[in-house]
């Protein structure tokens, strides 16, 4: 294959993959928000079970990582700001960085590692064990039964986890601010609130929701494309994590650009 053919083939495959993700996502969202009004059952209990696994059980690790990220942000910001005698800007730097970018992104990375891989492994194993075929022979659509509850759970839980991550990040920055940058807790919180605009938080939450949809779509897609054999389940899981990270960064770039160009001047 020539270089042109390779690039063309990769582009076509990439676009087809994104098309597949979009189809999976729209099918699932229709199953959650449209089909119940047309008499088709959607068991909310399955989403609740998924939400517990995706959200509640991720709280400890998200808390720890976000706290450390907040502290690291504060340290790095202070390192430069002290040259200009502007240490009081540390609180703003941490707050804006966490809410706009690092809160959603680091939460997405944790969710990819915990849940995106689990989705791929679960569905991949079901495929190998013919459980997906069994669903079809029982006239149950696998996307509606398996994927839609995950989409709803992620759509709700990833933004919630992001809010918590933002809070923990600010707390981590506050520990540095109070201990080494002459802040009191009161002044640090005041500075944080003054720096934040509702737009920062909203944009971060929109990104978080889109990350949640992306992670679910990629994880489930990789699960459904698992080949025969247990080795293929491992391959799907790894592929789900790698592709999810890449896709999340792409989505991040797109939405950050949108927010930049639509921001009021």
């Amino acid at each position, binding site marked *: 294959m020539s270089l042109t053919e390779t690039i063309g083939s990769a582009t076509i495959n990439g676009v087809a993959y994104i098309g597949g993700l979009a189809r999976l996502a729209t099918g699932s969202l229709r199953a959650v928000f449209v089909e119940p009004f047309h008499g088709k*059952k959607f068991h909310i209990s399955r989403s609740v079970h998924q939400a517990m696994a995706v959200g509640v059980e991720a709280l400890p690790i998200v808390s720890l990582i976000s706290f450390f990220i907040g502290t690291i942000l504060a340290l790095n910001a202070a390192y430069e700001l002290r040259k200009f005698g502007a240490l009081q800007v540390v609180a703003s730097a941490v707050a804006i960085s966490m809410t706009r970018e690092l809160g959603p992104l680091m939460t997405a990375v944790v969710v990819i590692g915990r849940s995106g891989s689990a989705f791929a492994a679960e569905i991949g*194993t*079901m495929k190998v*064990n*013919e*459980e997906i*075929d*069994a669903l*079809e*022979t*029982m*006239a*149950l659509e696998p996307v509606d039964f398996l994927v839609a509850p995950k989409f709803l759970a992620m759509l709700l839980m990833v933004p919630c986890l992001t809010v918590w991550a933002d809070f923990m990040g600010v707390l981590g920055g506050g520990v540095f601010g109070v201990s080494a940058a002459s802040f009191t807790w009161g002044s640090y919180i005041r500075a944080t609130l003054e720096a934040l605009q509702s737009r920062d938080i909203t944009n971060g939450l929109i990104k978080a929701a889109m990350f949640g949809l992306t992670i679910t779509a990629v994880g489930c897609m990789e699960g459904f494309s698992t080949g025969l054999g247990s080795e293929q389940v491992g391959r799907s899981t790894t592929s789900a994590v790698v592709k999810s990270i890449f896709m999340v960064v792409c989505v991040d770039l797109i939405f950050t650009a949108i927010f930049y160009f639509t921001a009021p001047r």
Partner: protein
Amino acid sequence: MATKNNLKDDSARVTDGSAISVRNLRVKYGEREILHGVNFEVPAGETIVILGGSGSGKSTLLRTLVGLELPSAGEIWMRGKNFAAMSEKDRDELRKKMGMSFQGGALFGSMTVGENVSLPLREHTQLDDSTIEIMVRLKLDQVGLSGFENYMPAQLSGGMKKRAAIARALSMDPEILFFDEPSAGLDPIIAAGIDELILKLKKAFRMSIVVVTHELASAYLIADRMILMDKGVVVANGTVKELQASSQPRVRQFLDRVPEPELTGEFDYLQMLTGDVPPIRQ
């Protein structure tokens, strides 16, 4: 038209008493055709056993009959409709009248046995929980698994998993039941138990049953008619006695368990792989 061995040929006869009528069915995986014009009927209330060696196409045939594969040509008539040409919605409606038991059971590992069996009832009916519980107990009792509602599939033996899978396949009181290798991987005693269960279901419910297997002992016990497949075509179709009396070489080789002749050269190997006659070497 009957052959001299009293085995019916592979032309389909559509009769009013057929549960399934397959006509000139062809199935491809990519460019490779697996089934080359299969014709047969499953009379209502009878048990058909589809026999064949590895690679004969019997599993592909079963997957096509339940709609997991779509044919590239041909028809599958069930309840007066061409299953192969239906919309997905109509196919799903027909699937509610069928039950399928997979080779490994295919029970959902995150659900209990009771939840597995009740799943079709919860999704497709408006029955209340207490009625569904009663029906689940009834189905588990029919397959000899009373009291196992709260067990997880991982806690069951191989034979018990097969029974639980059969209970799930029966939950909607199907008209047609499909079995994929029901005795595979089981010891002879447990396999005999599964055969007895199939016979019991056959006598009690008079449903049409299609079984794919390569276990001859099971086939002789449960079949009303047997179909032998080889390389994607039906090579024999008749009652157990008719096949046992057949003098067709491929039928005799399968039923008498005669191994394939040894391959003596690369051209023989090529022919075995492709089924084609190799070109004559100059």
